[in-house]
């Protein structure tokens, strides 16, 4: 193998990695924001709103992310909406992330004991106040580890954007493979770069989880 090919592949993959990171960040932040809204709706005790969010979550957790991408990318175009791969990928990953992350956070909120709700409502707090001052601060502590853990899923999820032609790490790998015919090298490097991105997050999540368990 010539060093030249290796460096061409490696440097191009690194450049594409930036897009994987960008897409991950945007999806994670937007997904988190939407997820927070979903969380409030899901535990709102307003019947129709809860049912609606439940349906939303069920759909995005129960169907393949790839299908969601296709629906947004090919499907919306039919309705006259011009959707770029970047926009479709961001949208799909945001919706998908919000569904999972709101469920993760709901688990954290629900692990706060009933007594906390009762104590705060006996202090005449409204629902929003209870959430803001009593429940969320406690839930937040528990939520950090699984949230960091889920960020790994988001990073991996961005790889599917390659399928609709968004040039991130995986798509760049496919293109470089087509140009160089070195699939073993290309996909090894692609995998290693994802690993370099995800493993620290996984590791950090595990550490946080351990610390929290030890603190209890």
């Amino acid at each position, binding site marked *: 193998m010539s060093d030249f090919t290796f460096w061409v592949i490696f440097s191009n993959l690194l450049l594409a990695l930036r897009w994987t990171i960008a897409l991950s960040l945007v999806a994670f932040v937007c997904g988190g924001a939407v997820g927070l809204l979903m969380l409030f709706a899901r535990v709102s005790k307003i019947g129709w709103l809860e049912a609606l969010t439940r349906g939303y979550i069920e759909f995005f957790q129960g169907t393949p992310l*790839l299908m969601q991408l296709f629906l947004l990318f090919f499907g919306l175009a039919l309705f006259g909406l011009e959707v770029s791969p970047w926009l479709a990928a961001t949208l799909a990953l945001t919706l998908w992330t919000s569904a999972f992350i709101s469920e993760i956070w709901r688990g954290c909120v629900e692990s706060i004991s009933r007594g906390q709700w009762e104590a705060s409502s006996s202090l005449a707090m409204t629902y929003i106040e209870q959430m803001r001052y009593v429940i969320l601060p406690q839930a937040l502590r528990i939520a950090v580890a699984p949230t960091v853990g889920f960020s790994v899923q988001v990073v991996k999820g961005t790889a599917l954007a390659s399928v609709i032609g968004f040039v991130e790490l995986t798509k760049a790998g496919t293109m470089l493979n087509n140009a160089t015919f070195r*699939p073993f090298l290309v996909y090894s490097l692609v995998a290693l770069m994802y690993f370099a991105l995800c493993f620290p997050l996984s590791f950090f999540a595990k550490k946080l989880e351990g610390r929290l368990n030890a603190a209890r």
Partner: protein
Amino acid sequence: MTYKLQFGELLPYMGVLFEGLLFTVVLTLISTVAGVGLGIGGAAARTFGPPWAGRVFVIYVELIRNTPFIVQLFFIYFGLPALGLKLSESQAAFLAMTINLGAYSTEIIRAGVEAVPKGHIEAGVSLAMTKWEVFAHIILKQALQKIWPALSSQIIIVMLGSSVVSQISAEDLTYAANFVQSRNFRAFEAYFAVALAYLGLAIVMRAMLRGIGRLMFPGH
């Protein structure tokens, strides 16, 4: 602007879609059995095996859990032939799915194994059982029972992830949807219908896994 939904356009393709569904179901079924089997072996190796075997499984689990499934699939389908291992689309799909689920179930089952109280292991040992007998008869079932919900979720996640095998032209449900929309230009209808099929599959599988759990672990 005024695109009219016409799900009727899918009717001529029901056969194709059904074949795709069948492939996805069989793919999921076989790789679930193989993957969970691999996971049991991995959990046993990590808790009771020699240190080198434990290390091998740690590396395997971390590599798989920290890379996207689609890259694993491409690596197996496009990359392995460079090492002389040429697989068909379906073979690559089955292998990738099994390896993927195997890693997750190793980790999940290991957590279950470690949650079994040490006293149960000692009780088994003091009844003259070997550590492998203790694992097979005392630990494994308890561990599986504890982590059954987590394992069930993971199996469903892997089933949904299987839609990616369409990208190496394995003829699964997603592949069928791609085929249909390329013929009738009804992308939204095709993908929406197939998305609902996946959702139905996920719901049925969840119910079945819960049922299996109840059959396997009575008394609790």
